[in-house]
């Protein structure tokens, strides 16, 4: 396929996804019936695939799809017993791709309601991720089931239970307002993050990482003033930029310092760096020093790595500073470990060893091979090669896989 045709196909797929999201979101708002909304949207898309190659593209494809889906929903509801009000609302659902006027004070994109409802904390976490994939990203239930390592019928039951709870416990189809919105947003972002990691892990579904990036972009358009939403997209892009370099041909993880940096996706890195500098500018415009959120800090750390020519050329002082802030926001042993490593590069191995000893004081990292490997690395750079080699062997004894064990034993032998 030529580039132009590939681009046209991508644009058509993106338009179809957006139309699907708008249709599902509007039909759920009016009918309250999640399954009906999904079925009607699917049928409209199927009919489009059937008709458009024959009849040609309609003037307003989004409006065409919305009308078909609406008519299908009307047919189904007329056959059942349904309140006249719902039928009336459906009948006036605009013929354009725009949705009917929201009945409430604030004009909110229906898709934002859909995202907040799918990510409601009263639903089990795994169901939130699955429901988001199914309802917003239109991913097939079988594909979601495979990523979660369950059978399709189990996943279908899980999705049905979640939809039943939304209906029966009356989880509102609404974006929370006021302080509740700020309280709920981190939960929404956590679902997106989990969705991304399902795409990023070795046994995951790579397409989910792309879905997470698209969702973060949509959320950023719908909530432009929320810095953490944009920061999360930057973080996704930076992690995703290493997708071709982070595994060797056998599928084993390649550590950052041994990755072929020419294979990183520099367009994605450029986009992420652009997002972060815009965030920095708007932070500076705000009155007073704005506190950076956890995703902004993680993204800045990832950007330092992504824009460095090598490990030695990395801006470790900036990374150490970001970890200091992150450790204050989200104190946990793994962040403390990374903080110690960063300080080791920024201010010398003794500074790193000192922080590492404090991070390990509670015993939380005792069986964590990376903590021992970090101590080994810092010890080697501090000059005690014999002790460092012993530590690398101790880390290897606790390694989780053959590749990790081999890599750690190689480090011991190199000393």
């Amino acid at each position, binding site marked *: 396929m030529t580039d132009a045709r590939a681009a046209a196909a991508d644009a058509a797929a993106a338009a179809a996804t957006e139309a699907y999201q708008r249709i599902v979101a509007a039909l759920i708002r009016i009918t309250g019936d999640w399954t009906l909304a999904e079925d009607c949207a699917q049928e409209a898309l199927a009919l489009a695939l059937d008709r458009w190659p024959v009849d040609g593209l309609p003037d307003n494809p989004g409006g065409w799809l919305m009308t078909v889906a609406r008519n299908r929903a009307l047919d189904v509801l007329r056959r059942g017993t349904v309140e006249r009000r719902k039928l009336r609302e459906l009948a006036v659902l605009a013929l354009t791709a725009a949705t009917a006027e929201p009945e409430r004070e604030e004009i909110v994109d229906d898709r934002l309601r859909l995202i907040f409802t799918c990510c409601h904390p009263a639903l089990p976490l795994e169901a939130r991720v699955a429901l988001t994939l199914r309802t917003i990203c239109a991913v097939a239930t079988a594909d979601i089931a495979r990523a979660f390592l369950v059978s399709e019928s189990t996943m279908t039951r899980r999705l049905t239970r979640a939809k039943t709870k939304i209906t*029966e416990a*009356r989880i509102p189809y609404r974006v929370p307002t006021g302080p509740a919105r700020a309280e709920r947003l981190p939960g929404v972002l956590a679902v997106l993050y989990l969705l991304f990691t399902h795409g990023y892990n070795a046994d995951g579904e790579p397409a989910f990482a792309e879905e997470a990036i698209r969702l973060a972009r949509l959320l950023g358009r719908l909530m432009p003033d929320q810095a953490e939403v944009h920061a999360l997209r930057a973080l996704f892009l930076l992690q995703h930029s290493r997708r071709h370099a982070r595994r060797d041909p056998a599928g084993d993880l390649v550590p950052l310092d041994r990755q072929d940096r020419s294979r990183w996706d520099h367009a994605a890195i450029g986009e992420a760096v652009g997002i972060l500098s815009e965030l920095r500018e708007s932070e500076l415009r705000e009155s007073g020093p704005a506190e950076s959120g956890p995703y902004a800090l993680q993204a800045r750390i990832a950007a330092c790595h992504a824009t460095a020519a090598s490990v030695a050329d990395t801006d470790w002082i900036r990374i150490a500073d970001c970890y200091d802030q992150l450790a204050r926001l989200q104190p946990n042993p793994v962040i403390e470990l990374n903080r110690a490593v960063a300080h080791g590069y920024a201010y010398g191995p003794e500074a790193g060893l000192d922080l590492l000893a404090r991070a390990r004081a509670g015993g939380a990292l005792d069986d964590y091979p990376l903590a021992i490997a970090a101590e080994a690395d810092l010890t080697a750079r501090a000059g005690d090669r014999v002790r460092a080699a012993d530590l690398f062997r101790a880390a290897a004894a606790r390694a989780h896989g053959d590749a990790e064990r081999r890599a750690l034993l190689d480090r011991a032998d190199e000393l």
Partner: protein
Amino acid sequence: MKYLMFVCTDTEPDTDPTPEPDINVWVDRHDASGQRLQGMALAPKSTATTVRVRNGQTLVSDGPFAETKELIVGFDLLECADLDEAIEVARTHPMARNGRIEIRPQADWDRS
């Protein structure tokens, strides 16, 4: 929509030292708003009696039907527009900090 709030104890209560909300203020506020229809605190579990009927025989026994560390110590019946409103009411109950609260909607037999 009616929701029942089960007010329970919890083995790990809140450690926040700020004073907890006053239960009488909570009751008065939500009675006035129309969100709390009724409710009561319950006597200790040592006073509980369990009743079953099997093959026409009434079986009465001492104690609660489930032996758990968390006990139901009271309930409140709410009338709320949706789950978020019920969560907001539950959040301000003193036992949300001292214990935990389970919110269950009324069954909708017409729908299922």
